[in-house]
């Protein structure tokens, strides 16, 4: 690590101020991407602004038909929350499937969403549920928020403070993990609200998390695994690396989407 100044603001205003005063400041939440990057000396921010001590960024509540989760809420808190389990059990299950126990007690939903790692689990739920990303200056639909690999519509210094999930009729998640990293090679989040179906894929996209309109249409008409059995995915838009080629990922998307729909309300993890 290179030297940096550590800040632990108590309010969003303090966090904003620390950011504006820093030469090259960056926000720290759970740190599961940032800290390894710093340890490998691949980044050298002047200031680290830890947002996990800001009370208004914590907590889970049900309000106005939404499940609202503070951005600095840990994966384990989301996983264990009775509210989340009641409203969107697949989201609870997804949180419980991230990394290991240590990761889940440090990593946060806002950090994962703002970082937009192409292998992270949360972006698929945020996009697959059509959530709204709330920042310190605006609200953004998930369709507008995720832009590309590690890239979101966030402006410099913009802080994700909360994520509001509309409550679906049913949602499900199926993931296939890399044997080495245990990150998802392919994971598919499916939600159904009335006749509207959203299908979001993480782990696989060359530009990060993305939706599958063809699958959504087919499932909107008929929410059964058979409805998507004949569909395929174009490998051109997918990542290719040591643990999975684009062709393999394309086929796994098909399989994981079908398996997700086979078990509505559940999460399934394969390796």
């Amino acid at each position, binding site marked *: 690590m290179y*030297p940096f100044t550590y800040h632990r603001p108590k309010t969003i205003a303090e966090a904003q101020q620390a950011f504006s005063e820093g030469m090259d400041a960056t926000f720290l939440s759970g740190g599961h991407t940032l800290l390894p990057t710093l340890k490998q000396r691949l980044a050298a921010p002047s200031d680290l602004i830890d947002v996990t001590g800001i009370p208004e960024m914590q907590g889970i509540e049900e309000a106005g038909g939404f499940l609202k989760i503070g951005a600095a809420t840990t994966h384990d808190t989301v996983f264990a929350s009775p509210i989340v389990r009641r409203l969107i059990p697949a989201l609870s299950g997804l949180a419980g499937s991230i990394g290991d126990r240590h990761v889940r007690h440090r990593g946060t939903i806002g950090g994962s969403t703002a970082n937009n790692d192409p292998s992270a689990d949360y972006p698929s739920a945020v996009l697959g549920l059509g959530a709204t990303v709330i920042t310190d200056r605006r609200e953004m639909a998930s369709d507008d928020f995720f832009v590309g690999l590690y890239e979101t519509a966030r402006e410099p210094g913009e802080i994700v403070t909360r994520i509001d999930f509309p409550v679906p009729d049913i949602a499900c998640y199926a993931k296939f993990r*890399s044997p080495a990293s245990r990150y998802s090679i392919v994971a598919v989040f499916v939600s159904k609200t009335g006749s509207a179906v959203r299908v979001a894929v993480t782990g696989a996209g060359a530009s990060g998390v993305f939706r599958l309109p063809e699958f959504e249409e087919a499932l909107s008409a008929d929410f059964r695994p058979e409805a998507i059995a004949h569909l395929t995915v174009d490998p051109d838009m997918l990542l290719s690396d040591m643990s999975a080629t684009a062709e393999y990922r394309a086929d796994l998307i098909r399989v994981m989407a079908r398996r997700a729909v086979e078990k509505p309300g559940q999460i399934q993890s394969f390796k």
Partner: protein
Amino acid sequence: MEPKPKFKAVGQPLRRKEDERLITGRGQFTDDFSLPGQVYAVMVRSPHPHATILGIDPAPALEMPGVLGVFTGDDLAADNWGQLPHNPVPSTKYDVKLTGRGGTPVYIGEHYLLPRDRVRHVGEAVAMVVAETRQQAQTAAEMVMVDYDPLPWVADTQAAAEPDAPRLWDALPDNVLVDSIFGDIENTDAAFAKAKHVVDMHYHLGRVTGVPLEPRASLGHYDPQTDRYTLYAGSGGAVRQKHEHAAVMGVNPDQVRVISFDVGGNFGTRNRAFVEFGLVMYGSKKLGRPVKFRADRSEAFLTDYQGRDLVVDISLAIDENGKFLALRSKNLSNVGSRCVSLSPLSKGSGLITGSYDIPYATLHSRAVYSNTMSTQAYRSSGRPEVCFAIERLIDKAARQLGYDRVDLRRRNLVSPEQMPYTNAVGSEYDSGEYEKNMDRLLELGDFVGAPARKAEAIKRGKLYGIGFSNYVESSIGSPKERADLIIRPNGVEVIIGTQPAGQGHETSFAQVTADLLGVTFDQVTITLGDTDVVTAGGGTHSGRSMRHASAVISLAVTDMIAKGRAIAAEALNVDGGQVEYEDGVFRTNATNRTIDWFELSRLAASLSPDHAGGLKVRRDNEMHTPVFPNGSAMCEIEIDPETGSLEIMRYTTVDDVGRCINPMIVHGQTHGGIAQGVGQALWEACVIDPETGQPLAAAFTEYGMPRFDNMPSFLCEIAEVLSPTNPLGVKAGGEGGTTPAPAVMISALEDALLEYGPPDVAMPFTPLKIWSEIQKGKAIAATKQQGAA
């Protein structure tokens, strides 16, 4: 002849003495040691697989805050620091004799602590920066300007052996450093000429690394008052390290003290000296401060000594009755950029015929240099490679010739009546009941029930495979060991020169000592790992420790009994001949009085000041004769044909370890050994980018480790066929878990994928590769179907 000891502790699954210390954070690993005034070393490492070093400019780094020194190969040369004497050619009487071309000596490239001419692999240290803090040293290391002129490079094993491959060493006409032929060419050729069937195979068992949980570390301190160096560095044997570093420095070994207490995993990776061990001592001498180094995980992936990497071409001649007639094998080992050990090639060379009676064999053994990290003996050095070759070849022969694979093996196994059995390349197997092991395994693993389990899995849409392998391996290792046996009024101490890295020597050696002396397990402590206390010893490798320790302790106990008898006679005021000894107690017919070891120690101190510190015996032993642990393993796997995901459903072994001192420890080691072998078959690989020569697996995100949720609950049974070669009949345990594991896994995989054709890609068989094999098989089937239509 002393009466036979009564075994009370030996054979019992006693809890390990070291565990309370380790699980309560009181272990003493290298990085746990710190010395006053200590400073930190960071290495500047090569980004190139091969490059000429045109120059190194330390000036910008020297100006950085906290920097105390930047050292290069030129500095070491100016101070006459020499090379690491790895002695890579195995040298016991029973090792096969590897040579260069035409019987010439093996060319060993120079290995200075820092190179002056070229870098030969990515990650090679070219300079050391020492600063007040680790962070300052890291930052300054980025400022050391190294001027490289990149050279053509070669990493692939077969490519490195080509005559026109980029050369690593100017003194060699190509990269081939070993080129030896063994066996009986004439009779092998004759057997092949008359054979009804010949089956052959080509494969590459790839490169893996040991990944010890504790990264390697070193702390060096030079004391000008005494002109002595102290090195804290976990290894596979402190005594060896002491002598090798003394040689590098050109000092008397007595001037070097090496301390290696708790070691967090070794698997062979720590059995050769690392350059950073010598460098911290150099830095300490130059700067007058203790210097500490600790590798981070990426450095460990790049520059820990690595394992395996053998290319084999093998063929087997078989007669009309399924009897093996002769074997030919060409084995090519990749030693990396420097030759630190030829053990993998040598060990494997002696075992090419496996557990089978094959009258004739020829073997062409070669080793090549390449622009990769050096390889070393890694968990079961050389044996999984050759076990894989013979066992996979037999599976292939069975399939091609229409034999049941167990039956074909049964026709050819070496029988107990043939023991000791000299195989076709001269290895003498000491003992073993191979067919009995195999039959017991089939019973234990319910081999006859496997087809029913397969049918049930297929019903659930899975592919199901049943894998099988026999194995025999050799345990040789450094031939010398020393034990100091000390009996004091309050307990027994044994000082010995092995080095556990989790194997539980403090427990199993105490079990042996307790029974041999007729004292209790709790009364014995084992001292290891400080060369000022442990004066000699061969370290821990090649499954040698239990065998060598039990042998030298037995001899020390015999000496101690003789000594005790004399002292008891003096104390009881009788002739030595009148003293009887049994099970820890001396007595005479003259009185009712008895004396045990602890009372004897007390009495001895009062009789002579020589015994003031306890009754002491120092015993050296030299034992060259190898032993041959052996056994059988089977596993059953389930594959999800849609994803290529593989699950191990059952894994069963029968392992003849000779006498088993502590079955709990042996089972634990077998379990770990299985995981390591399975890891190589399914996930682990030190992948190098064929375009750039850069290692691609330098973190846990890329290097697939076996994890507990990948493993079933193992069913392991120990068979004890005592070895006639040593007092307690010990062979070796643990590595037997690893030896057959790649063969048994790929055997199962092939069985599961039979309908898609035999898999022809290299290990590891990740889900991606399994899926790809299934797709390929489907495509071929579809083409055939179209052709038929």
